[in-house]
């Protein structure tokens, strides 16, 4: 039994190692596992052995500067895991105004139909939850949010769109998130916000934190009638 409670470790390409805790989500809550991952990520950061350390959805990928260190760290990461220490991030709460449906949410009806709900019910369910930022990925500042209601789980599109507008709010499988910049993508789009998630105008300033959200923050979506309403409020979003 205890064997099953070990994360899976596997190599990705030549220089990366993935710690995958997907099989453990029955025993602990997703957020608890993620707090353990954040802690391990901090421990790894201190070593200087990595080019990048990227938490994912209940997993952690370590990009090595030197692949010879992989065996050592495989062992080390496993040991860290058994210590069961967690990082409790003091996150901030950020409200994100969203115009749902219509041209801004072309897949709202499809998500409703797939889940046998009305579009209005999808909006109510989506705005009633508070979501934890599990990790950032895919695009600069793109938050993967935990806490999507099971009633809204919807598969990704069979063929990803080539261009999704910035600010689009989508659902991909059991996840929901916001696209910070125009990009291709396979999630079902239910609405759009005008919040700036990644400020690339912080040019030349290496110490600036260009990302609005950080892992451990909490997000709440607010339904609004028109995106125009928030143009003024936009500048008031805390950073």
């Amino acid at each position, binding site marked *: 039994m205890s064997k099953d409670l070990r994360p899976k470790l*596997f*190599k*990705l*390409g*030549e*220089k*990366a190692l*993935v710690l*995958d805790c*997907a099989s453990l989500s029955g025993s602990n809550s997703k957020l608890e596992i993620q707090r353990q991952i954040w802690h391990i*990520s901090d421990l790894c950061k201190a070593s200087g052995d990595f*080019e*990048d*350390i*990227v*938490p*994912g*959805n*209940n*997993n952690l*990928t370590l*990009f090595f500067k030197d*692949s010879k260190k992989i065996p050592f760290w495989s062992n080390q990461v496993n040991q860290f895991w058994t210590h069961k220490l967690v990082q409790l991030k003091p996150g901030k709460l950020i409200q994100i105004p969203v115009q749902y449906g219509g041209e801004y949410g072309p897949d709202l009806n499809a998500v409703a139909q797939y889940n046998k709900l009305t579009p209005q019910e999808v909006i109510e369910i989506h705005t009633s939850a508070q979501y934890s930022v599990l*990790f*950032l*990925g*895919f*695009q*600069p*500042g*793109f938050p*993967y949010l935990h806490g999507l209601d099971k009633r809204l789980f919807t*598969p*990704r*599109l*069979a*063929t*990803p769109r*080539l261009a999704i507008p910035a600010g689009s709010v989508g659902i*991909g*499988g*059991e*996840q929901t998130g916001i696209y*910070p*910049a*125009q*990009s*291709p993508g*396979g999630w079902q789009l239910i609405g759009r916000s005008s919040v700036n998630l*990644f400020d*690339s105008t912080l*040019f*030349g300033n*290496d110490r600036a934190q*260009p*990302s609005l959200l950080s892992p451990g923050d909490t997000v709440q979506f607010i339904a609004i009638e028109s995106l125009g309403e928030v143009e003024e409020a936009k500048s008031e979003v805390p950073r």
Partner: protein
Amino acid sequence: MIEVLTPGFHTTVQDLGRTGYRHLGVSVSGALDRQALILANSLVGNPDNAAGLELTAGTFELKFYRDAWFTLTGANYEIKIGSREIWHGWRNNIKAGETLSLRGPKSGMRAYLAIDGGIDVPLYLGSRSTLTAAELGGHQGRALKVGDRISLGNKLSISKPIGAVQRGYSNEIRALPGPEMAQFTQQSRKVFWSSQWQLSNDSNRMGARLTGEVLDLTQELNLNSHAVMPGSIQVPPSGQPIVLLADGQTTGGYPKIATVIEADLWKLAQTRPGEQLQFIHVSPNQAEDANYEWQQYFYRLQRSIDANS
């Protein structure tokens, strides 16, 4: 300083990329053909990581405002200073006031222009590379336009032209099996390694989209997104593989059938839309050998450049 007279099709400032920020979702970016950029930099006496220009087809014209040494590597372009023709893969001198024109490519897809002292745009998160998808880095976060004026680093002292032979292109691309390889049907696994894949027109700096026989999973997979990287070959439900390139997303949720080895990733930058390529299955040991051989190439190259300078 240099001034862009004709911008070409998607010309961007690139160095060897941006690491340390993938946890914020910032892609590594950087030159798609890293070996061509390193070669170009070596020829003009720059450090490997100096910024150059990455050209993707079309005509590109540049006016120089200081004497400079430059070289063009990667895809084979016609190169002229005024009306004088210049060899590809050689370093040459250009005088202040002269115009460099580049037209191509005759073969390959992406060319790299290195200038002594390097392209001097501001560092953003530790790199000069342009990530157009996020409008950051490079020259104002975008591809170059007519009239752009860009600073150069300090001039280096170089006395004579020299050239280098570039490694030959083949359409055989070595790859390691990916974490979800076993979850594709036996037939699809066979097809993946044995068939010719065609590079689609939808390809760009984010990904090389391939078309061919549809690849099927034994059963539907709903994976938790984790980090991916340049070289990861994802298969979305359409069954048509996408090889992630330098500007590709940092995390992804599609099954990964294989990973292109680092030593062969440059070949995807030099394949043209419509051309075919094939994946060759290698072991981790073979990948390591290929990398070693790659490092050796650069080592020998640097030694002979030093010896001839």
